[in-house]
Each structure stands twice: as structure tokens, then as C-alpha cells.
């Protein structure tokens, strides 16, 4: 190890509260405090809080910022209203296919700057932050747009679960509590939480209702501790990256480097919704890699992303071969993520397989360390919260 690990403003709290600290994308992060299963179930049944400050937080502003982002992202940006959040891919036109997927990201339009310029935020993966920033900088016009990396001067907390909104809004003024409670999914607002300014969005990576908060780095610990105290009696757990991974797996959410890679066909991995090829009036959009992506959609890849639920608890890990039943030689796909899934009570996985074997309910085998383990093709997400909880 030549580079020291980066630390979030909450690193000391994690260490002193039993966090098992690991290197994740160059950051010293807690994988769990006590039990991944307990943290996972707390998030499903009450609430869990995650330090996700390792995620990259970028700010884009200036009079031309909306048009500039519109020209670079696979989703539309020009039509985003203030307080709207959208999932997008970040692509470049590099590589043999003429399109390289640099990352997946959330783009949000924040309140306009005092001079009336629009302001946007981008949340990108920790592992891709430097590459995305370098790519965006290389495309910056000389005037009209400014790009800043706010990752180190801010922190990001995810509070997730059926009680998440109730817990956080306990710490807000009546007006801010009402504004947060009224947020629809993928909407955001500015609010004071525990008397500290926060960008609050109704987003998350767990399949639960919940909020993500961006606060100043210096406010991270007081806000975290206030939320822990407010949630203690309601079953709030601090959760590590281990539970974050099992929760997002059950929720069928992609993880860059697993379901989605630099050379993925986004349509084959179930992310066609993140590619908007035409503007509202039907005219073709232009962004890096748009033409090769148009061809990919016209000539569908024979593979598709599916869920697999196993008969047992033994987990298939990434790159395990998926085969026809009792035909270890007939490889039909590959596992992209897999784990024991606490809500399901069995092992589950996401896999990319030939469309011909992707029929719901069909049995497939997955080779786990030379043993064929039986699994059933299951639609994603593998877990869906009750609609009444939203």
C-alpha cells in the first residue's frame, strides 16, 4: 500500500463504534459494525444509516451548465426542474466501440445560483470519481460552466428504511419537516437537519423509502449523532457497506464494476431506461457514444440481466458460470453479483444470461467452486417494499 487511505469525516466514529474498517475504492470504510444480517434487517424493518461520503460529489454551475450537461449525459438534463433528480450514465466516445461507460450517476438540479444560473449536482462512484472528473474537465468550455469536486468539503449520509423520513424530520423545523415528508421519489430540497444546512433527497440504494443528505464536512458528525439519537428508540442501526451491498442486490440495483462495466451494453444489462436517445420532440440527441448506443438498441444483444434465487444459502459470487440444469458444459451466462440475502432467507444473485434461458421460473445451475447449485430465474427486483410504505 503506497497511498494512504482516504477517510470520511465519520471515520473515527465508525472505528470507536465497532466498525470493521476495510479499504473500499481507496477509502477507509466500515463493512459492518456488528452483523450484516442485523443491519440489513433493521433497514428493511425500521431504518439504517450509512456513511456514503466516499461517493464523489460534483457541482456544475454557470449560465451554460444545463446545456453542457445535456450534451454529455445519457439522460436529458435541460428539462430537469429545480429539485428533480435523475439516474444517468456518464459515457465517453473512447474505446473500440466508440462508447465507454465511465460511470452511473445521479444528476440533480438544485436551486438556482444568486445570479440566476442553474446549479446541478452529480453523485458518482468513489471508484470512478477521478476518471469522471478528468473526463468532464476535458470537455469544459472556456466560459459559461464551472465544475467543482466537493467530495472532500462535504459528507453524505443515507438514512433508509420505512422509518427513515420520520426519524430525520424529527430534527427539522415544522416547515422543513413538511417539505421533506412531501418529497416524492427522486426529488430533493434544501433543509436544516439538526440545525445544519443539508441537501436532502428522497433517494437511496436499498430498495427502501429513505433519504440521502449532503452536509458540510464539519457538520457530518453532529448530524450523524443527532440522527442516531433520534432513531435509537425506533430501531435505527448504523450500517456498513456489507449491508448496503446485500440491500441493493435484493433491490436489483446495479453496481458499477459488476452489473455495469466500461464495455457493457446498457440495454442488455437492463439499463436501457438510462439512455434517452431522442429529445421530447423526437429529434436524435447527441452525447458521447450516442451513435454506437443507437446501434446497440437497434440490434439487441442476445443477453439479458436476470435475478436468480437459490434453493440454499450458499452464495454464488461474481463471475460464477451459469449453466443449463445438470449440463455443466452448457454455459449460458455469468453471475455479476451474489450473496446470501437476509430478507429472502436464501442466496440470490444477478446474472447476465442468454435471453433464451431467461424465462421467469425456469431452473438454472450456477457453478460454485465446482458444485452445481440450483437456482430459479426470478424477475428483478428480488425484493419490493410494500407500496403503502412509500
Amino acid at each position, binding site marked *: 500500500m503506497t497511498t494512504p487511505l482516504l477517510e470520511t469525516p465519520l471515520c473515527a466514529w465508525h472505528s470507536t463504534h465497532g466498525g470493521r474498517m476495510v479499504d473500499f475504492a481507496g477509502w477507509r470504510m466500515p*463493512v*459492518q459494525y*456488528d*452483523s*450484516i*444480517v442485523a443491519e440489513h434487517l433493521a433497514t428493511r424493518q425500521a431504518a439504517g444509516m450509512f456513511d456514503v461520503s466516499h461517493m464523489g460529489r460534483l457541482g456544475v454551475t454557470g449560465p451554460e451548465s444545463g446545456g453542457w450537461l445535456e450534451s454529455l449525459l445519457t439522460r436529458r438534463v435541460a428539462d430537469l426542474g429545480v429539485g428533480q433528480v435523475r439516474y444517468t450514465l456518464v459515457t465517453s466516445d473512447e474505446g473500440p466501440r466508440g462508447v465507454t461507460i465511465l460511470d452511473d450517476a445521479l444528476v440533480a438540479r438544485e436551486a438556482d445560483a444568486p445570479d440566476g444560473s442553474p446549479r446541478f449536482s452529480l453523485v458518482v462512484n468513489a471508484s470512478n470519481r477521478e476518471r469522471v472528473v478528468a473526463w468532464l474537465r476535458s470537455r469544459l468550455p472556456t466560459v459559461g460552466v464551472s465544475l467543482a469536486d466537493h467530495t472532500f468539503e462535504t459528507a453524505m449520509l443515507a438514512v433508509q428504511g420505512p422509518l427513515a423520513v420520520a426519524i430525520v424530520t424529527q430534527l427539522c423545523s415544522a416547515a422543513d419537516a413538511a417539505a421533506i415528508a412531501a418529497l416524492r421519489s427522486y426529488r430533493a430540497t434544501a433543509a436544516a437537519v439538526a440545525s445544519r444546512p443539508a441537501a436532502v433527497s428522497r433517494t437511496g440504494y436499498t430498495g427502501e423509502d429513505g433519504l440521502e443528505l449532503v452536509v458540510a464536512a464539519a457538520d457530518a458528525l453532529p448530524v450523524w449523532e443527532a440522527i442516531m439519537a433520534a432513531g435509537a428508540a425506533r430501531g435505527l442501526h448504523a450500517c456498513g457497506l*456489507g449491508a448496503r451491498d*446485500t440491500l441493493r442486490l435484493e433491490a436489483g440495483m446495479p453496481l458499477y464494476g459488476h452489473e455495469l462495466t466500461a464495455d457493457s451494453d446498457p440495454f442488455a444489462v437492463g439499463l436501457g431506461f438510462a439512455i434517452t436517445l431522442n429529445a421530447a420532440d423526437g429529434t436524435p440527441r447527441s452525447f458521447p457514444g450516442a451513435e454506437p448506443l443507437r446501434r446497440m438498441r437497434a440490434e439487441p444483444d442476445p443477453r439479458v440481466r436476470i435475478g436468480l434465487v437459490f434453493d*440454499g*444459502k*450458499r*452464495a454464488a*459470487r461474481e463471475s460464477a458460470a451459469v449453466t443449463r440444469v445438470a449440463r455443466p458444459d452448457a454455459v449460458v451466462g455469468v453471475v455479476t453479483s451474489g*450473496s*446470501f440475502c*437476509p430478507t429472502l432467507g436464501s*442466496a440470490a444473485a444477478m446474472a447476465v444470461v442468454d435471453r433464451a434461458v431467461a424465462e421467469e421460473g425456469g431452473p438454472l445451475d450456477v457453478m460454485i*467452486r465446482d458444485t452445481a447449485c440450483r437456482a430459479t430465474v426470478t424477475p428483478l427486483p428480488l425484493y419490493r417494499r410494500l407500496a403503502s410504505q412509500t
Partner: protein
Amino acid sequence: MAADLRFAKTHEWIRPEGDGLATVGISAYAVEALTDLVFMQLPEVGRKVKAGESIGEIESVKAVSDFYAPVSGEIVEVNQALPNALETLGQDPYGAGWLVRIRPDDAAEAAGLLDAAAYDSLVKSQPH
């Protein structure tokens, strides 16, 4: 921890039983470090193993770990109830949570492993 236990650096324990056999398990420290156990695969009875050879795997939510034969010999019995009751490993790691019984090739080999005090200092020197 009883005084008749010996430990491998890879966190297995072994206890000579006086009938020419020895019982093997994994230490309380290892079970605690793994957490969230979901799956275990035990070796087949009759298998001849060398000291340090993987004789099975134990899987937690986060990772798969091998466990190893602390001495050379033959596997003569496995704890068949254990894979369906993994909580036993945490509740009674040196008793009901045993993994296999082995017939050592050399009855003296276990004596060369760590005693409880030496294993304890090994564990304490590891980051947790």
C-alpha cells in the same frame, strides 16, 4: 479454552481424544471474526489429508473462507448436524460445534501446534 486443545495459526483447534482419534474445530475468535455464517461444506469421510490442506469451507454473508487440516491423517467422522445449525459454532465452538474427527498419521504431530496461551497471544497481536 481447555488445556488439552492445540491451535493452528489458521484458527483451527485440535483435541486428541485418547482413542487414537482427534477432534477438530475452529476457534471462538475465528467464528467471531467471520460473523453472519450462512453455509459450511465439510469433507468426505475416508479422505486422507495432509496438514495445512483445505478440508472444507465456511461462508459468511461477506466472504468464503477455507478451513484446514491441522495435522495429517484420515477423516473418520464429520459433524453432519453442523451445516444446518451453524449457530452452534458461536454457542459452543469447542464442544458441539466440532467439525471433523481425524485419525492422525502421527499422534505426536498435534503437540507441535500452538497451546492456548500461544494462540491467545497470536490473536491479540492481530488487528481486529
